């Protein structure tokens, strides 16, 4: 299986474009597990078939292997090197987003992109690199700095036949576009009696990064989740990034696609054939029996990190990347709850009013009888994200907390 964390390990090939210390990210959390025994566990692919990791490779690569998502179409392979005989191609998450975007722009001439620095600059995270040269600077539009305006512009263009993708340079900036997103994007299909549709995609990087400061570390999914009329999805791997991007563009509803600043350099091998991911589905990352861990975006990797520890301690967690933040995939979540009877939610949102809070309410309402213990929700604290590295680290849920929570939950 291809290695996902090459970029995050600070490998030569995938140099980070922003100020993220990749080694610190992984090494801090894996230091504890270096001394522990290696245990292999089965990895389930998105189509339901199971691959067992063959034994024998070095500890570090295997640990990384075990942390990867299973949605890749290729079989599990102990060698970390990619070979030309394998199907599919390897790319980083931001490239996967671009690939999905480009395929849709090729397929449908109405698809266009607008945002700050998306044109010749290629986007602040290089998701739109090269597109302006290929499609022209009208179809990949550089806008002045007015989020409310270009979001409104995207809405107006969508109502008259285009399919714009609006990029917020950072999701936090879209707070300036809240009026347009809530009052117009979400509403106009309804209030016009179904006459006008708004097939717009609003996307951008969000979440807590590496010392980007409080204003650039917002979790907008908390604020937007209440708006009727929109759908929200969060991508976490190159595979689902491309799939969700394509699905979002093809959807007739306005979709907000949440990316994470720290996940852009994840590497994965994805299929050559065309595919899309279902916008309303969650993703089974690791099936298990003891506890259901629900997470999304970057926290998926912290959870998988903790899963490694938990497995060593004899637990069998089921990890689900909920992916669809609005609406929740209560079908998959419900089946999991009925199986394990214990739920742990791990999110990056703040305690109050986050996705976890809504998810807790939804599960309690629908599956209360199946729960053996109250739902535990691990979130960030209700504080603005501090700048200092140590403080910032403590504000985000760490694998150790996840392990402790599972242990307490399973007592």
């Amino acid at each position, binding site marked *: 299986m291809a290695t996902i964390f090459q970029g995050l390990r600070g490998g030569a090939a995938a140099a980070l474009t922003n100020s993220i210390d990749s080694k610190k990210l992984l090494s801090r959390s894996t230091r504890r597990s270096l001394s522990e025994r290696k245990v292999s566990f089965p990895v389930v692919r998105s189509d339901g078939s199971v691959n067992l990791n063959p034994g024998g490779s070095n500890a570090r690569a295997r640990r990384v292997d075990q942390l990867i998502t299973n949605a890749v179409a290729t079989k599990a392979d102990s060698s970390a090197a990619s070979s030309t005989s394998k199907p599919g191609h390897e790319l980083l998450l931001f490239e996967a987003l671009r690939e999905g975007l480009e395929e849709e722009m090729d397929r449908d001439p109405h698809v266009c992109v607008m945002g700050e620095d998306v044109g010749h600059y290629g986007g602040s995270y290089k998701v739109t690199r090269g597109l302006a040269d290929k499609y*022209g600077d009208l179809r990949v539009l550089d806008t002045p700095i007015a989020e409310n*305006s270009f979001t409104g512009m995207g809405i107006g263009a969508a109502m008259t036949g285009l399919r714009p993708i609006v990029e917020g340079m950072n999701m936090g900036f879209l707070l300036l576009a809240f009026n347009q997103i809530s009052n117009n994007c979400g509403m106009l299909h309804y209030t016009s009696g179904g006459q006008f549709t708004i097939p717009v995609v609003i996307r951008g990087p969000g979440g807590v990064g590496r010392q980007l400061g409080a204003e650039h570390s917002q979790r907008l999914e908390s604020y937007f989740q209440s708006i009727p009329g929109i759908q929200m999805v969060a991508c976490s791997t190159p595979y689902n990034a491309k799939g969700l991007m394509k699905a979002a563009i093809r959807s007739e509803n306005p979709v907000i696609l949440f990316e994470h600043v720290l996940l852009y350099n994840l590497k994965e091998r994805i299929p050559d054939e065309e595919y899309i991911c279902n916008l309303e589905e969650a993703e089974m990352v690791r099936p298990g029996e003891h506890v259901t861990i629900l997470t999304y975006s970057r926290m998926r990797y912290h959870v998988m990190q903790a899963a490694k520890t938990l497995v060593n301690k004899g637990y069998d967690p089921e990890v689900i990347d909920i992916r669809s933040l609005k*609406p929740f995939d209560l079908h998959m979540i419900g089946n999991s709850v009925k199986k394990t009877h214990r739920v742990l939610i791990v999110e990056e949102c703040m305690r109050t009013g986050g996705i976890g809070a809504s998810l807790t309410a939804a599960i309690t309402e629908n599956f209360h009888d199946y729960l053996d213990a109250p739902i535990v929700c691990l979130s960030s604290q209700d504080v603005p994200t501090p700048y200092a590295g140590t403080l910032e680290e403590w504000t985000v849920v760490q694998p150790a907390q996840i392990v402790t929570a599972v242990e307490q939950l399973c007592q």
Partner: protein
Amino acid sequence: MAVCVRQSRKSIINHVKAKMGLLGLTCLSSSMPSLNNDHRTLSAASLAKDLRNQNSVLENKPILYRTRRFDSTKPHQRSGVQSNVANSQFLDFPGGKVAFTSEMRFISESPKERIPCYRVLDDDGQLIEGGINVGKEIAVKMYSDMATLQTMDTIFYDAQRQGRISFYLTTIGEEAINIASAAALTIDDFVVPQYREPGVLLWRGFTLEQFANQCFSNRGDDCRGRQMPIHYGSKKLNYLTVASTIASQLPHAVGVAYSLKMDGKDACAVTYFGDGGSSEGDFHAALNFAAVTEAPVLFICRNNGWAISTPTSDQFRSDGIVVRGEAYGVRSIRVDGNDTLALYSAVRTAREMAICEQRPILIEAMTYRVGHHSTSDDSTKYRPVDEIELWRSARDPITRFRKWIESNGWWSSEAESELRSNVRKQLLDAIQVAERTEKPPLVDMFTDVYDAVPSNLSEQEKWLRETIKIHPQDYPSDFPL
């Protein structure tokens, strides 16, 4: 029927259009109305003196370097800096050459004279010398629609006062802006309204029954009972559904224009807003965007003097809205908003400029809001009654235009009374029918939130239906389920 002077202009445009293609046109400034370049400047020495006495008009503005950003929708090389000529009196700053001056001058915050207002019909409905003509058919339709709009407003307003509808908002005093601008557009021009422009819908064929249905939120309502009265919308007539938010439609209009530009259509976006709406951030952003993206959009400002109770003196300190156009690089004009013919010709010309030259145009129509802001407002509380009466009677745009068409022999008092009584009867019938028409069914509460009803909404609908079944006495009995 086309206008004489305009025809020659139009044929020039068509001829050039045919030669060069829609997007490749150069600016036809010779045939366009002259741009007002007056600027007052202050010299440092005279700062202490009274501002109004000291003025030196800057005749020639420095020429701004400008590239055409979108030659086509096909990719192209970005053009580099054109001139490297070193000139000691100019410097190449980012954005273009700027001349130097050793005299410290502050540009005044207000001009000595306000930008003049374009008008061709005087107060008595007489054509001013050099004005333009429209044909009988258009003129009579314009007048009839203005009179219909006025009657509709009166009757619906009364219906609200009688408790038959919950809310209404009149266009009294601004009928000319509504109808004349609508007449100057084609059905392909996409209208993005604020809320005081139902006349545009009326011109395009929205029936009185449709207006009534929306106000009564019944089953015949195009909005399916989901919006307040006067929030009309019609995809068929290219008129975007009214949203209550102020000025949020301005960026939408730029998006619509962007869409039209991408498709290379012979149409423009048209958006309306008031003097109050021009204070919103969306106004600034939309104008800026439209200029930068070279979008074919008409921004029509109904400067009616009042934003609910806020007079324009408390809304802004600039010379109205028209001067802001230049600040964003948008061509602009100030028009007498109660002069039907002036509006018609200004909008017609602006539309051609917008489409042929792919640029936004700002039109400030000066007028007065004769009615209250809405049925929730009593404007006599904050403005003198005689001021309202003056504008309602002596300065009524409909009366003024009526004098003109009567002087042409196209209208008479018989035609007038016939029109008024017909429309009145039609409206009263429409209201009666709309009032009795069934309300939208419960299922319409949950549809169109998304393209397909998702499971959570189906559940919520089911739950609601069950609740109604258990407690029927707590829900209106005449409500269709």
